């Protein structure tokens, strides 16, 4: 491994990041998730924490751009350079830029997350069959409104699970129209447009007006790329037109004829020779997660490695089950030291709880690393009440606070000492009121502790949660046998006894819990109130589901 000259590094461990804009290639939630996972690669092995900011200046400002994108190092169109990042420091230092002439995916072709339909936002399943025909892309077949859709299981006829694919007819992103769909035709500088356009912009991004007249209303958004859209060329966003004619010959599929670099391309009208409209055909694309993890390595102080299997090796290669190479870990720990959390280690073999077991009191816990101050945390991985005490989880540690009074916060304690099977990052936890079983969720897995006995990890899919869910953000107990599990903008009701999600779910959080952020990262119940946390703030809701207070977690709950 190599570090930058002078061992450039951050002088603080609570690093902030901000996503300035999005690529049209993937749904913003997938991009958010890819970046969050990429940061976690590094926070898992160092004492660094990464917190997302939604405005202002963050240590690491993340953006997508094409060619000349505002710094002295232009990108070079599709392939070649994928991204770059600057070493730690002020200003542009620490920032990461991604070339939006690339096709950003999760590494295995278009990553298409659906909206609406009946699949709760699941990813498209390619190929899928519909009326006996196999589809490898979204299709408008079977619809009269021209909206592209896909099945989210292999067989639509059998499962009837579907959702709509990204399309400007459904929504836009960025801009100033709150994601409204395009309105066609629209007027811009006196001209009428029937499709998304790059006119009027120098950055090559396709946009549309979301009313019929941009000149009057000035409302616009950027067009999401359809999975069938070509990349680059001069028809970005258009689908291939098959057959198309090129040098007098008809082509029914993408071809590399005419190019010296072997890349597949297609015409986007029926005749390339006349119209000269073309683009590259969608391929597997580049994994945004892997490239981001590499770039964030630069942003926290690592230069390129000479170890071919290291993440910091300069060339891109796709790996399915990624883990950091020893070289990467040694490099970053040379700069920041080891994580103060537990080493990643396999969870102990699950043991069946003995029903005759008495609930065991929590083991004696002793504070570790007093420098870890809960009051300095911007937010927590999870907050919940266990044995009547409020518990705050963050990066391998937890603190607790008695339920009543202003008694001081205790901790930090090591999660691995008290619950050895758990990973350092806990997304959600709750205590089942009757049996006092503790449920812990991390990513797509969960564990159940009964005293010292643990069951798990098990996949959250076993509970009936959809595959598309990356993590459970929060939980609210409903009586003694039901728990609401929150993820993204939805929530599900878990029947704890049956260990199954009840029918009729998910439901939308913003409908059932109006007035709280629908992207809360912690949801918990405390002293008869529901709490929804975003960033450093909480929204408190009473039993009539009215928001009766908004405040700071740090001051109002932690009493810092």
């Amino acid at each position, binding site marked *: 491994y190599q570090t930058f000259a002078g061992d450039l590094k951050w002088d603080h461990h609570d690093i902030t990041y901000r996503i300035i804009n999005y690529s049209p290639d993937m749904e913003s939630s997938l991009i958010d998730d890819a970046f969050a996972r990429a940061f976690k690669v590094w926070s898992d092995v160092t004492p660094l924490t990464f917190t997302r900011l939604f405005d202002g200046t963050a240590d690491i400002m993340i953006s997508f751009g094409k060619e000349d994108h505002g710094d002295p190092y232009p990108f070079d169109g599709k392939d*070649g*350079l994928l*991204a*770059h990042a600057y070493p730690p420091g002020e200003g542009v230092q620490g920032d990461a830029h991604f070339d939006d002439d690339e096709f950003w995916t999760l590494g295995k072709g278009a990553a298409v997350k659906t909206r609406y339909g009946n699949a709760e936002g699941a990813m498209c399943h390619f190929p899928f069959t519909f009326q006996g025909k196999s589809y490898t892309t979204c299709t408008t077949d079977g619809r009269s409104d021209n909206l592209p859709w896909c099945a989210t299981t292999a067989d639509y006829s059998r499962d009837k699970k579907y959702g709509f694919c990204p399309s400007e007819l459904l929504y836009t992103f960025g801009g100033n129209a709150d994601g409204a769909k395009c309105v066609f035709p629209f007027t811009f500088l006196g001209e009428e447009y029937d499709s998304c356009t790059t006119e009027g912009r120098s950055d090559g991004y396709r946009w549309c007006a979301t009313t019929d007249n941009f000149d009057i209303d000035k409302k616009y958004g950027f067009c999401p790329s359809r999975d069938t859209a070509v990349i680059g060329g*001069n028809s970005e966003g258009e689908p291939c037109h098959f057959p198309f004619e090129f040098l007098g010959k008809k082509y029914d599929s993408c071809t590399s004829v*005419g190019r*010296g670099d072997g890349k597949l391309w297609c015409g986007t009208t029926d005749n390339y020779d006349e119209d000269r409209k073309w683009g590259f055909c969608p391929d597997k694309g580049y994994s945004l997660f892997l490239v981001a993890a590499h770039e964030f390595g630069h942003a926290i102080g690592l230069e390129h490695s000479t170890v071919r299997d290291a993440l910091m090796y300069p*060339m891109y290669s796709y790996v399915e089950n990624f883990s950091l190479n020893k070289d990467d870990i040694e490099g970053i720990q040379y700069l920041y030291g080891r994580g103060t959390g537990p080493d990643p280690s396999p969870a102990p073999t699950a043991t069946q709880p003995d029903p005759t077991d008495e609930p065991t009191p929590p083991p004696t816990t002793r504070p570790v690393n007093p420098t870890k101050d809960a009051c300095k945390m911007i937010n927590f991985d999870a907050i919940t009440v266990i044995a009547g005490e409020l518990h705050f989880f963050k990066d391998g540690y937890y603190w607790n606070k008695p339920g009543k009074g202003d008694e001081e916060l205790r901790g930090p304690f090591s999660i691995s000492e008290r619950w050895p099977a758990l990973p350092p990052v806990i997304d959600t936890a709750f205590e089942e009121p009757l049996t006092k079983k503790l449920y812990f969720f991390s990513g797509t897995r969960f564990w159940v502790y009964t005293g010292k006995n643990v069951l798990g990890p098990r996949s959250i899919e076993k509970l009936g949660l959809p595959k598309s869910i990356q993590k459970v953000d929060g939980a609210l107990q409903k009586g003694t046998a039901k728990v609401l599990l929150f993820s993204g903008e939805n929530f599900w009701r878990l029947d704890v006894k049956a260990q199954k999600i009840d029918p009729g779910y998910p439901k939308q959080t913003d409908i059932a819990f109006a007035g709280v952020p629908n992207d809360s990262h912690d949801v918990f119940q405390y002293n008869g109130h529901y709490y929804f946390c975003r960033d450093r703030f909480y929204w408190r809701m009473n039993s009539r589901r009215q928001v009766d207070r908004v405040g700071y977690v740090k001051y109002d709950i932690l009493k810092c």
Partner: protein
Amino acid sequence: WSHPLKQVFVTFPGDIIKNMTDVELAESYLKKFGYLETQQHRSGFQSMVSTEKALKMMQRQMGLEETGKLDKSTLEAMKQPRCGVPDVAN
């Protein structure tokens, strides 16, 4: 035997032209990722830049055989998708 197909290359509108000779590509790559610059910096004379040394450095970085020549595997490596941060600090 059929006649070999005559390969026709077209200049596509809007394409970022990358029609460079292998030597041009190598020179641009070595400069962009810091190999040539380092050589310049150390020697102090631009005319003293040794492409062979720069190539060897690049081959070492990439785990290739250090021939100092623009061989096929080196050229292939230069065409691979990669990060834009220079390999050699500047």
